[in-house]
């Protein structure tokens, strides 16, 4: 069986200082084993 997740997430853009203040990044690699509850990706709350 397979599960596919599709979601919107923040990508970097700040018009004022043009810095990456809020950006989603996957923290996994292809072929990784993962468990329920482990992070797939993170972003920084601006």
């Amino acid at each position, binding site marked *: *069986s*397979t*599960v*596919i*997740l*599709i*979601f*919107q*997430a*923040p*990508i*970097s*853009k*700040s*018009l*004022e200082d*043009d810095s990456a203040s*809020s950006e*989603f990044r*996957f923290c*996994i*690699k*292809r*072929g*990784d*084993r*993962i*468990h*329920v*509850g*482990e*992070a*797939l*990706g*993170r*972003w*920084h*709350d*601006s």
Partner: protein
Amino acid sequence: TSFLRKFQTTQARSSINGGRSNSSKGDSFLVPGATLATIVMLGALHARRLYGDKKLEEARENGIEIEFQPDVKATFLRLLPLRSISRFWGFLASMELPIWIRPYVYRSWARAFHSNLEEAAKPLDKYASLREFFVRTLKDGSRPIDSDPCCLISPVDGTILRFGELKGAGSMIEQVKGFSYSVSSLLGASPFLPVIAEEDIQQDSEGQEIIPRHENKKSWWRISLASPKVRDPAPASLTTGLFYCVIYLKPGDYHRIHSPVDWNVLVRRHFSGRLFPLNERAARTIRNLYVENERIVLEGRWQEGFMAIAAIGATTIGSIELFIEPELWTNQTRKNLLHSEPPEERVYEPEAVGVMLKKGDEVAAFNMG
């Protein structure tokens, strides 16, 4: 071979002697012999599978990407009554086992498919059937949820096959190198799926495409009316992208699906497609595998916008149990032979709020057959 020789010798002796007692001895030998032959065959198949997996793993480590290669066996699979096979397997797996044999059967399963029995919530002899054991719950604390509020967690135990960002109109998800499918064909016609039109795509300072946040009628604002969490208006500069992640669950994995974030499930779609196997070989030989198989799609919104989970069934793990809608039955006998019928859809009430799920909540489970 030695077993067959022994069996032939026994049969020959019984026919020479013509005695009833010898004949019955031959019959009694047949049952354990057949069992032994079946075990040997399953062992050989398992060894072959492990060898194939090892070769694939080595290829992946060496940076060799698996490519799509349609083959005759995949074409032949379309002719097989996979749904009936799946349902029969489910029937076999749900047969109650004698208590004394249960630990042996489940330990054998765990050894073959690398399951961790230490995590099982109940003692092994408490699982009445293989089907019940397969969807076992885990001991409390076995799957700690990442406490970072700015992280999206894995909804399942499994292996990461693909992930990335969908950019531009008509973005496709790659099944394997050389074959892709569209998001809309996987999820169905969705009013919530962000429309990424070419004219909407901008370039950021590094030359990468960025997509402005799309507001639609059923926005997070309306959802948040039912939620105590008060959200500030999104700054005009904040943008979102559309991401995806494909996770494959091996037979030995924990087969329950959890919520990846706090979100509101607004719609459920059930596609009663086919039930092809979903292993690595199938992925590289069967076209449109994830789009053709029976699946349940849950769609809704979370604090950053759109969210969807597609749970895709396979031949052995054909049915999907949805905890937020227990009356839903999947892997049913087909009323017609058409595989292209539209999905059955249900909008969860109240509209625009739907069913609220917390990060880590159990959402669904894959069942055998």
